[in-house]
């Protein structure tokens, strides 16, 4: 296989990594040779790498990451546990859907983050307030995607199961759950992004630990390399989680390749 053929096959990967590497190189060289570096204003990749290594080895950032993850997991788990049954109920009972849909839509469309200061004042600085914030932001994608999934269930399939003597349990496990699952996973990906917003806002606003707090503290103290290291850690975590969810979606629902952009 010639070089050209290899390039043709992997051109996205090659060009993509080339542009990322190129940008890092230009960034480094520009600030080393062309523009005098003002450490209170900007930093460069080599300094960030040093800060990153220090943070990872001495583990300060791991602790912050663990604190943030804990709040995230609590809020997200409650969103799953409450959102999915609620959405299924709304989809399965027509009148329940009519009743709850406008109310939840209003909450989903509005920036609930605006309540963050109040949530923090009420629940105090720490795990509880952050978890509540994550929950409030990430519950709605679960509700609405489960709702849409259950409603999209083919009535024909339901009738078939009923005709062959299937009970309520068979309906749920053989028809409704498989139809709804891809919707739920898609919802989980959206909820993930919103949940991360909750964590970050909670920790920016009032916290004593956590990755968002670390980043804003480094910013306040003009430690730019450390701040960038923190931002990159969060970026890596966000990409791994989102792409993982996307992979899961592709495995569980290979037919749903159309994407609404997020």
């Amino acid at each position, binding site marked *: 296989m010639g070089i050209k053929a290899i390039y043709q096959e992997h*051109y996205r990967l090659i*060009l*993509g990594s080339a*542009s*990322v590497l190129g940008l890092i190189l230009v960034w480094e060289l520009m600030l080393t040779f062309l523009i005098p570096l003002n450490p209170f*204003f900007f930093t460069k990749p080599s300094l960030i790498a040093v800060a990153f290594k220090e943070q990872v080895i001495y583990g300060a950032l791991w602790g912050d990451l663990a604190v943030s993850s804990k709040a995230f997991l609590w809020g997200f788990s409650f969103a799953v546990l409450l959102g999915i049954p609620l959405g299924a109920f709304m989809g399965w009972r027509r009148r329940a859907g*009519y*009743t*709850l*849909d*406008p*109310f939840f839509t*209003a909450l*989903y*469309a*509005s*920036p609930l*983050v*605006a*309540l*963050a*200061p*109040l949530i*923090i*004042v*009420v629940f105090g600085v720490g795990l509880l307030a952050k978890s509540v914030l994550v929950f409030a932001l990430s519950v709605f*994608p679960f509700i*609405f995607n489960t*709702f*849409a*999934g259950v409603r999209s269930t083919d009535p024909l399939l339901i009738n078939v199961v009923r005709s062959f003597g299937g009970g309520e349990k068979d309906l749920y496990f053989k028809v409704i759950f498989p139809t709804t699952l891809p*919707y739920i996973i*898609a*919802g989980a990906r959206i909820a993930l*992004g919103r949940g*991360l*917003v909750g964590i*970050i*806002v909670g920790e*920016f*606003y009032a916290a004593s630990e956590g990755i*968002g707090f670390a*980043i*804003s503290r*480094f*910013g*306040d103290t*003009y430690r*730019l390399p450390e*701040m960038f290291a923190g*931002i990159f850690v*969060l*970026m890596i975590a*966000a*990409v791994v*989680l989102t*792409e993982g969810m996307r992979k899961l979606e592709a495995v569980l629902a290979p037919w749903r390749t159309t994407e*609404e*952009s*997020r």
Partner: protein
Amino acid sequence: MNRLANFYSEKEAHILGAGFILLLIVLWELIPHLLTVSKGMSLFFTTPLRVIEAGYQLIVENKIQEHFYASAIEFLLGLGLAIIVGLPLGLIMGRSRLLDAMIDPFVTVFNATPRLIFLPLFILWFGIGMWSKIMIVFVGAVFPLLINTYEGVKNVDRVLVNVVRSFGANEWQTMKIVVLPNSVPYIVAGLRLAIGRAVLGVVVGEFFGASKGLGFMIATAATNYKVDVVFVGVAIFMGLSLILTMAVKKIESNLARWRPEEAKTF
């Protein structure tokens, strides 16, 4: 009686939906009359009527206007900037294989990351004035616009593009005649998502290191236990985002009747 029943069955969805929201508001108002709110809790408690009264007071005393204008300008400038940058970039990425492959890693990474994380950096770079907020609104709103424009361009019918090309159209004309009109539904959908992100950026941006804006008003009111003022701010944000998203949604459904229904996204 029959007519009433008919009316009900026709409008059941609206009646139940609106009725539930009204019921919740009335119940909220009645809570202090039904149970005694403890002294500690009453600090954090308010009722809809008190919120309306506080809102009225703020307007009469000319206290809220300044915050409102500040937020509106940040929102409009940030979103405008996002449109100016996002649309052309999305079009170019959709039409050029090379640039698509080169820019895609950045778009994927930044889109997955909550862009609010850049707020401390922007405050450092642009100061605590209006520009750090405009920039945070911009980075929030630009990616949904860019990605949806890109998707729209990618989904343009190849046959149509080839027809126009065969008749001798150049890239610019192809763009104008086929690509752009066909991407409009996607772009509008992107705009709806972008509005949500922009509002988020305004709110959170004003929480930190700001001296005016509705987000600032909410944050200071919360620390001073003025819960009714908090809810005034929240209600304004809620109302505006609802009106804006519904308006764009309306345009969207007019533009793309043939597209299948998706789960709601904001």
